[in-house]
């Protein structure tokens, strides 16, 4: 039942179809962009950009490597943002039991934004100044509940974006990793056990962008999260 994404960056051509599809499905308006010498636009996630294709350039062993990373919320198996949010209002951030989606409701208005953002190991939450809500990718929960694929997955022409049952995606990720490793010995899956968005990268993860790495915060170790989430009351909140 639990769902997952598998993002195979080795197949990404950075067409940014996912970024556009996300905006269109959500009905998000334009944000000002600027020529900054990269196709990465806007430069960062915003309260109306839940998906962003990040570009980074490197010269590795004399070869130019242009790395693409379609970034989005990882929908953690044990989401630290929810844990922090629950301290204030346990109905503000929901963890959907069926899909595993981590959902920011309009009640996030009442949560301290900086704390929520800092709790995220991948720096995903953004504040919508107009509404006061904290926003991010919601796994296209409306589409998924209706049996459709998330917009970003539906639009992807190359098979970089995949979505399905967790076990299925985990198996696909392992299968692709074995193949991709033949060409890219440094290929790896990023924090696959902790997330519902499994990334396959071909180079060392530090080469992509700052938050391709997990920012491990001492107060949010997996153990403490497990302890928190074991409480039945909080589990029901999802």
């Amino acid at each position, binding site marked *: 039942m639990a769902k997952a994404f598998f993002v195979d960056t080795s197949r990404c051509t950075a067409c940014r179809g996912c970024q556009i599809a996300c905006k269109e499905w959500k009905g998000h308006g334009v944000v000002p962009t600027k020529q900054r010498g990269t196709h990465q636009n806007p430069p960062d996630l915003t309260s109306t950009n839940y998906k962003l294709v990040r570009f980074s350039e490197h010269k590795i062993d004399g070869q130019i490597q242009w790395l693409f990373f379609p970034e989005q919320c990882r929908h953690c198996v044990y989401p630290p943002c929810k844990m922090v949010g629950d301290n204030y209002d346990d109905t503000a951030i929901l963890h959907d039991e069926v899909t595993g989606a981590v959902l920011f409701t309009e009640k996030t208005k009442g949560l301290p934004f900086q704390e929520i953002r800092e709790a995220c190991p991948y720096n995903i939450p953004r504040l919508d100044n107009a509404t006061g809500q904290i926003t991010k990718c919601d796994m296209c929960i409306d589409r998924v509940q209706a049996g459709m694929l998330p917009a970003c997955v539906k639009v992807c*022409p*190359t098979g970089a974006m995949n979505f399905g049952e967790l076990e299925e995606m985990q198996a696909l990720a392992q299968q692709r990793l074995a193949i991709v490793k033949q060409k890219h010995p440094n290929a790896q899956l990023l924090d696959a056990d902790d997330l519902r968005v499994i990334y396959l990268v071909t180079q060392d993860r530090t080469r992509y962008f700052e938050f391709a790495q997990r920012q491990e915060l001492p107060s949010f170790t997996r153990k403490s999260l497990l302890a928190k989430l074991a409480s039945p009351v909080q589990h029901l909140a999802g």
Partner: protein
Amino acid sequence: MTNHWVDIKNADAILIMGSNAAEHHPISFKWVLRAQDNGATVIHVDPKFSRTSARSDFHVPLRSGTDIPFLGGMVKYILDNKLYQEDYVFNYTNAGFIVGEGFEFKNGMFSGYDPETKKYDQKKWAFAKDDKGVPMRDKTLQNPRSVFQLMKKHYDRYTLDNVSKITGVSKDDLLKVYKAFSATGKPDKSGTVMYALGWTQHTVGVQNIRLSTIVQLLLGNIGVAGGGINALRGEPNVQGSTDHAILWHIIPGYNAVPNTNWQTLDDYMAANTPKSNDPKSANWWQHRPKYVVSLLKGWFGEAATKDNGFGYGWLPKVDPGKDYASAVLFDEMYAGKVRGGFVYGHNPAQTMPNTHKIRKADKVTELSI
């Protein structure tokens, strides 16, 4: 495109040249990556490193506009190393045909050039024919006047040193591409060429593409799954220009546009149906009457009968010898000779050369929609 998009997945090598496929024809990469999954080598030859290069097995930058020497070097490499498919080349190309005595190539010029009109008399390059008018052939491909031997001589100059000097590509990189792509010159292998406006929009656009045809024919890559020469097209007026006959000189099905010299269907057929005395020639366009009648029936339905030439008389006819191409059309608008028109699926004020003139021409007309 000689093949269709999905067929790209069947290729064993993909040469992307004059195209930034991943960015401009993103769906093509769905199939390029499928081919790569199956072990195909994806090669991007382009001055610029792009997202296409990022997903290719290797990217080789070349000096802009030097595609002809680059491919010419590949022709020589294929010939020198006998990587061509001999059976294919003899049976399905004109390599064995004997070229008539009138053909000559000297000091960079072909025979038949008239400096006054700056045009070639192409009749001088005709094949030698027997008494039945059938081109003579040499099965061994050894006759010095065979297309094959003349081609060999012609491309003799495209040495690695020369090509490297002109293209700015290192000899190692040249060989890397030549080797990877000509490995498809085997009956059980195929390679495809993907090109776009990076080839067509050069002054030598046609020559770029014809040269890729020579490469593909030598390797036996035309008419096979995963082969071909694939012009990547997206916009309706590019693919549609041929398929839907949006260009002025043809009607659908690649048939010539009727002109006033061909008043009846019989005139039209006589002028456009080729004849061959060669029993082995497929001469496919001998079937043109069937295509044209079918088209006319499609247009006019039951009103198209044998007695009325299937309605051919109702078709508008152009003046023979007159050019109706869009560049000429705007010239005439500019001169006040064309007084109105409908423009759709196209923004000439932005896409035609010399936009100032186009915009002025547009103002001269009385009706522009």
